Every structure is written in structure tokens, then in C-alpha cells.
């Protein structure tokens, strides 16, 4: 039976039927010091179906694309059996659906470039790291290409093709490591940039880290670079604004709450050109749009997927349903977190802080959305004395209560960070590409550890 027929069949005995098919390929090349360490290529394909029956969703998937009938049947049985545990049944709200075919915007398809050319690029790039203290330099070049099809019983039929490229380097000395990344939803053209400057920046950072000591723990006025403020707005604020957490009562932020200063406006924007977290349609076929979540300090919406939009009253629909793979049901996820620029320059923020720290480079962190407690690791910190940077430190951990920090913001810069960054964000066992377009921010009385 073909897919349309199966969708129609199951729509007759359920409230809704949905189908996904994904075909993707990835390749990566790793250069370690002077030799090619690894090259790997992979192909993935698979199908999945989700059925809403008796007010409860059921989801099934397989890597075997010939098992369409089985995945529909399993999803339907799961929904029916589990519906007895569902206290409040899900009721469908009407949504606009589309038919569209989206081609990738990449100028140069990396899968059409020869392996030899990629290997030569990698070899030349890795050779740029020549600092004598470096024990190991490893650069990985990777590309992925995917074709995602989504169909549902409301006639949606979206086929999206995407290409991603990334370059990752790590240099290691006796005691320190420096990681740098360049990634975007672009093709091979991502690699056309000033590689020498990129390498120089990493080496300068390594030199600073090797000669610096740890910052003294305590409370500081802190100027945060876009790498970390991006992660702060994504991890601490963005996750707390995901609608499934309202349903699960595990977010510390509520609708209409005055959460921050009036200068703060926060968006989720999947339409930023080339950004790592961008897309045209979300994984439930909803057309992507820029959604305002905090307007002048007040929470006005939560990002949502269908399930949370149906279950939580008072939400405006956003296009944020995303799945990591064919085996994962979509959940509300951020795309690119964006903050409206402020009136200060970076330099003015440093001068305004007077005595404090400028923290740069994100190297990890996590947040508990229920309590709002977060902890981030910065690669570097710089001591600000009388409005001037006088000394560097290696590493610093920033921690606090997000609600307090949002109220302690003292300034937002006009400048944004590098657009070719972004990361993989994990939630409920799923990891998806996300990015940020955020400025420098200054915060008073932030807890800094080492």
C-alpha cells in the first residue's frame, strides 16, 4: 500500500495520521598533525509514523523503508493501548498545512567535490597550527546532506533538502586544549575564509591559557561575549520557554511574567540565512517564522510543537517541532535564538562594568529549567579594572539563578558574534543543530568560580 493510502486508512480510524521519511548521507575527514587520521562515510534512511488515537499519540519507526504498513500499525496500537493512561486527552486544533519542495541553498554541493580536494584542504589547514607547544592538532571537515519528507492526514506534503558543512579544530598542549569551530547551513563555500587568522586566533588563545592562572572566585560585574551570552539565552532562557515544560510543570518561567529588563527582547528565528539552526518548515510541516518570546522584558509566548500547542492553552503557534532522527518523535526545540541589539558598544560595556571580568568562549554548561539554576564554563576571563582590560585568566565557571541574572542585566551591545558557529543541543535524548544571534551583555553581581 502506498503512503497516501496508508495515511487515509489510518485517518479513518484515528484523529490524525502523520508520516516521515528521511534519507541522509554524511562524510567526515580528520587530519591529525601531518597525516590523514580518518575518513568516514555513512548513509541513513528510515521511515516513521505517528497516530493520534483516543486522544493519545503513538509513534513507531524503522530503518527498513519497506515496513510502512508495520510502522503505521505499531503506532496505532501504541496510541490505543497507552490512551488509558492519559489523564487529559489531546484535542486537535486546526492548523494551516502546505505542500512544498525545498531545495538546498548551498552554492557548492560538497558531495560533488572530490575526496582528494577535501583532503588537500584539510592538510593545508592543519599545517597552519605551528606553535611549538602544540602536542597534537586535529582538524575535522564534515558534511551532511538530507532529504526529509513529511506528510499528514491534513494534506501536508513537504520535502526539504538541506546541506550542512563544518570545520572543527582542536589543538592540545601539555596542559591546555583549544577548540575552534566554523559551521553553517551552507555548502563547500563555507571553507572559503581567512584560515590563517582563524589559526592565529586559536594559537594566541593557547598562549594566553598556558601563561594564565585561574580567576579568584567571587561575585563580579561581568561582560559576557556572544559565545557565552548565546549559550545563556539558549540554555537558560530558551529551554525554560519550551511549551512541553509548561505541560510537565518543569519550567520556572510563566506566561506574561516580567522576566527581564525592558531592553530585552528575545526571538526564536529559524529564518536566519545560513545559520546552523535554520530551516524553512519544521518537522511537523509548519512554515518557519520568527517568533517573539520575550518582548521588552515580558514573556509573551513559548515555542511549541503540535502536541504542546494542542495541550497548553494560550499559546501562539510557532514552527519549532524538531526531531533528531527518524526514530524520534518531534518535540519543541529552539532553532536560532536571537536577541534584539542594544545601544552600547562592546567597549562601552567594558567601561561601564568598571571593575569586573570579561568572559569569553563557551566550553560547556547545563541548566535545570525547573529551578532556573545554571552553570557554564567559559574558556577565558579578562580582568577589568577602571574600565580597562588588564589581565587574562584561564577558564571561569559562571553560575546562578536565571531569573535573577535576567533582572541583573545592565547593558546589551550593538555588535553580534560570529554567525558561523552554533552547536548541537540535547534535550530528552535528542540532539539538533541550533545557533544564536546575540550581542555582548553585561550583568552585575554574577557568581564566578574556577
Amino acid at each position, binding site marked *: 500500500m502506498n503512503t497516501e493510502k496508508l495515511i487515509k486508512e489510518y485517518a479513518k480510524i484515528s484523529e490524525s495520521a502523520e508520516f516521515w521519511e528521511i534519507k541522509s548521507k554524511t562524510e567526515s575527514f580528520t587530519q591529525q598533525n601531518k597525516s*590523514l587520521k580518518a575518513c568516514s562515510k555513512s548513509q541513513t534512511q528510515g521511515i516513521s509514523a505517528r497516530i493520534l488515537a483516543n486522544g493519545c499519540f503513538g509513534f513507531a519507526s524503522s530503518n527498513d523503508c519497506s515496513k510502512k504498513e508495520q510502522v503505521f500499525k505499531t503506532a496505532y496500537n501504541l496510541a490505543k493501548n497507552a490512551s488509558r493512561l492519559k489523564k487529559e486527552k489531546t484535542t486537535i486544533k486546526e492548523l494551516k498545512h502546505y505542500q512544498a519542495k525545498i531545495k538546498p541553498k548551498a552554492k557548492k554541493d560538497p558531495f560533488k567535490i572530490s575526496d582528494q580536494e577535501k583532503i588537500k584542504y584539510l592538510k593545508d589547514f592543519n599545517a597552519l597550527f605551528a606553535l611549538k607547544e602544540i602536542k597534537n592538532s586535529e582538524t575535522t571537515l564534515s558534511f551532511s546532506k538530507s532529504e526529509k519528507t513529511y506528510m499528514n492526514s491534513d494534506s501536508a506534503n513537504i520535502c526539504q533538502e538541506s546541506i550542512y558543512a563544518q570545520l572543527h579544530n582542536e589543538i592540545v598542549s601539555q596542559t591546555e586544549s583549544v577548540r575552534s569551530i566554523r559551521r553553517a547551513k551552507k555548502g563547500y563555500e563555507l571553507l572559503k575564509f581567512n584560515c590563517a587568522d582563524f589559526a592565529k586566533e586559536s594559537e594566541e588563545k593557547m598562549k594566553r591559557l598556558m601563561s594564565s592562572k585561574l580567576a579568584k572566585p567571587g561575585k563580579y560585574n561581568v561582560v559576557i561575549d556572544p559565545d557565552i551570552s548565546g549559550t545563556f539565552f539558549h540554555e537558560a532562557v530558551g529551554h525554560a520557554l519550551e511549551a512541553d515544560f509548561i505541560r510537565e510543570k518543569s519550567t520556572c518561567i510563566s506566561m506574561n511574567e516580567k522576566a527581564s529588563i525592558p531592553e530585552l527582547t528575545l526571538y526564536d528565528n529559524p529564518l536566519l540565512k545560513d545559520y546552523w539552526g535554520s530551516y524553512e518548515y519544521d518537522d511537523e510541516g509548519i512554515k518557519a517564522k520568527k517568533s517573539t518570546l520575550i518582548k521588552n522584558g515580558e514573556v509573551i509566548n513559548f515555542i511549541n510543537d503540535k502536541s504542546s500547542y494542542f495541550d497548553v492553552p494560550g499559546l501562539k503557534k510557532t514552527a519549532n517541532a524538531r526531531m533528531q532522527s527518524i526514530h524520534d518523535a518531534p518535540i519543541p526545540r529552539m532553532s536560532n535564538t536571537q536577541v534584539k541589539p542594544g545601544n552600547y558598544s562592546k567597549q562601552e560595556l567594558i567601561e561601564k562594568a568598571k571593575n569586573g571580568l570579561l568572559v569569553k568562549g563557551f566550553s*560547556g554548561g547545563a541548566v535545570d529549567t525547573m529551578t532556573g539554576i545554571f552553570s557554564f564554563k567559559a574558556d577565558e576571563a579578562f580582568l577589568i579594572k577602571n574600565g580597562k582590560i588588564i589581565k587574562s585568566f584561564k577558564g571561569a565557571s559562571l553560575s546562578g539563578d536565571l531569573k535573577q541574572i535576567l533582572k541583573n542585566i545592565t547593558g546589551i551591545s550593538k555588535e553580534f558574534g560570529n554567525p558561523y558557529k552554533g552547536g548541537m543541543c540535547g534535550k530528552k535524548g535528542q540532539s539538533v543543530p541550533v545557533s544564536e544571534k546575540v550581542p555582548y551583555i553585561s550583568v552585575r553581581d554574577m557568581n564566578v568560580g574556577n
Partner: protein
Amino acid sequence: MSETKNFEWEAIIQTIKNDSIRIDKKGIDTPKSNESSAIIARAILGNKQGISISSDSKNMKESLLQAKSIAKIMPDFEQMPKILSTEKFKKKTLTYKNFTEKKLIDSAQEIRNIAEAKAPLISLSFSKIIYNTTYINSLGARIELKKDAIAQSLSIGKGDRTGSNCSILNEKKFSPQSFCRHALMQYENSKKASKPSQGNYPVIFCNSAAESILSPILFSLQADNVCEKKSRYQEAMQKKELSKDLTIIDNPHEKNNKAYYDCEANKAKKTILVQNGIINSFIHDSFTSKKLKMKNTHNSASTSIKPSTSYHCVQIKGKDKLSQMIKSTKNGFIAYDTYPEHTINKITGAFGQNSSTLYHIKNGEIQGLCKGYVITGNSYELFKQDLEISKETRNDLASNVGAIKAKATILKN
């Protein structure tokens, strides 16, 4: 497949069936049933090798062809190890055969009822996983392993008062009561909040908190990281780098976590990595053992990059009773879990971790939950101290690690 001289190959074919449900306060989240499959094929052409991965487990020929084409562009390995295994082995360990989809939902409901009788439910995830792995190679070796497991995670409470537990089991006796007990105990302990001042304290790291702070040490004991000069223990073989109280064993023969072979079809064996603080061995596969001229510990991992190693089951057991470790703490902390590993730098060992289950201990008694504290320190330094390690270990498939008591810095937000 053997048209080229010096062509050898090996492949791992894996299928996983995972049925899972997640329950929260509002009822059930989307139940799922996944059937995933993969082939990891490795081709060796003389001194070159290529690895390819595909989700189409039926198409071995194409996977090998791709692996072979990758091998052609790779440089020569200085010391390419030969494929040696001719083992034939088949083992099926299905503990939860009768655990049907309906029983899965019923068991989740049972856990929910036990938990909700004493505390509000935040979330409960429950899944049954069947792993089916087959190794084959050009010498005719064939290892077929089939096993199942149950994974569960429970979180209860409200606001500042919470309790949680998670585990992966393949024990015959599955007990919802004992699974809930740990989370309920934490919930009870969180009744009164405690606000001690920041400073250096003895901290008892339990469960995932112990595994997190241990991760840099384990990273440095992997021979692939030694080869890449990322390991802290590069030149430390037979040297005392860690506490005399610390012995780390990789043990594939643990009752609840039997591993039979590694990913090169070598029989899994017990390796003492650290004995009373002295570095005794790294974990190796055939590549690293050849390169570093050390014994192969049979810890090859199936990844897209060779060499790569992985632990079968890390075992750290002490002589102390956890209850005694708590009793002997005059003024300190106990952390049952910490947020994910990525707040730890495995190369430098620096960590700064939050914990939603950090409790203050005063005069040998757990006082209450400490909200808004960060545990900071350096793993490489922390494990040099005198340690107390508990007899009791976390009941998990991936590791068997006791609670570890050491001094660390506690910072207040």
C-alpha cells in the same frame, strides 16, 4: 569480495528494538517503538583501511565496497594490525522475553502508583531494549549476541523538594519498589533546605556524580588518547599518579554486565587499570597495542574512527559502607547526581558542576537539600587525595562504581 590481494574485511551488524514510554504529571507522553539498524564495515587493503556506516543492514556488499573505496584514499598505517579472529560464538540472553508492550505500560503504571502515593510525579521514562549484534570477518569468524535490558528513570517532587533515580538493568528480578525507594529517600531528605557557607568540604559523590568526576581519569586511561597525546598519563605507566585508595578495573565478567567479545572479536577480559593509585594498564585495541608495544586488552570499539577503545564495565569498589561514610562526615556534602559531563574538561580535569541532589551533611546526618551550589575542582588533583570508597555500587549496565568521598570546593550562587 576478495578480488584484491591483501584485502581483508570485518563488519558489525546491529539491530536494536526499543519500546519506550514516558509519563509525566499530565499523563502519558507519546509512546514509541523503534527498530534501528546499522552496518559498520571495515576494509583493509594492505596497510590502508576504510570504514563505512549504513543503516541498511541488508546491504553488506555495498557497505564493503564503500569501505574499500575509502581505504584507497587513506595513507598507509605504519603498523596495520591483521584481522586474526576465527571465533564462532552465539549467545542469547533474553531476560525480559515476556515483557510485552502491555506489561511495559503496566509496569510503568506500577512505578507511578508507588511514587505518587508519597510524592508528586515529575516524570517517569521506561523502556525495553533488545540488542542484536553480529560480527563477521573475511576469515569466517561469526559472533552473534542477543541481549535485552530495561532502562528506567524517575523524577518526583515539587519546587525545591525532589528525588530521582535512573538505571539500566538486566537483572532477572525487576523490582519497581526498590527502584522507587532511592528517589523517595531523596525526596524525604529534601524536606528542609540547608544553606551552608561556601568553602572546601568533604563531598560524597554517588551514582552519576561519581562517574562524572571520574571521566577525565578514564579518558586518560584510553590508549587512543595516549597515542594522540591527549592523556595526562602519557608517561605514567607503573607510576603512582592517583590515591592509594583507588583501584580501577575494567571487568567484562560482572554478573549483571557480561561482555563476551570486543569489536574485533577478541574475547573480553578483565584488566586492572589502576592498582592502589599506580597506573597499571591502558585500555587497548589491536592498533594501540601495536603502536605502544603493550598488551591488547581487547577493548576495541565500533566507531567510524580506528583506533578507538571503550570500556566494558568500569569497576571501582571500596571497603567502606556508604552509611558509615555519611556518619563519619562532620560537615560536608553528598551529591547523588550532577548535570551532564560537558562541564568537565577531560584534558585539564577542571570541573564546575551543578547538582539538583546536593545535600548538606552535619554531624553524620543528612540535613537537607542545598539549592544553588556548584561543586568545583580538578579531577586529576581530586583523585590524588586520600579517598573513601563505598562497597555499594550503582546498579547499572555501563559501570559499577561506588560512592567516592573526597575534598572539593563548594561555591554558592
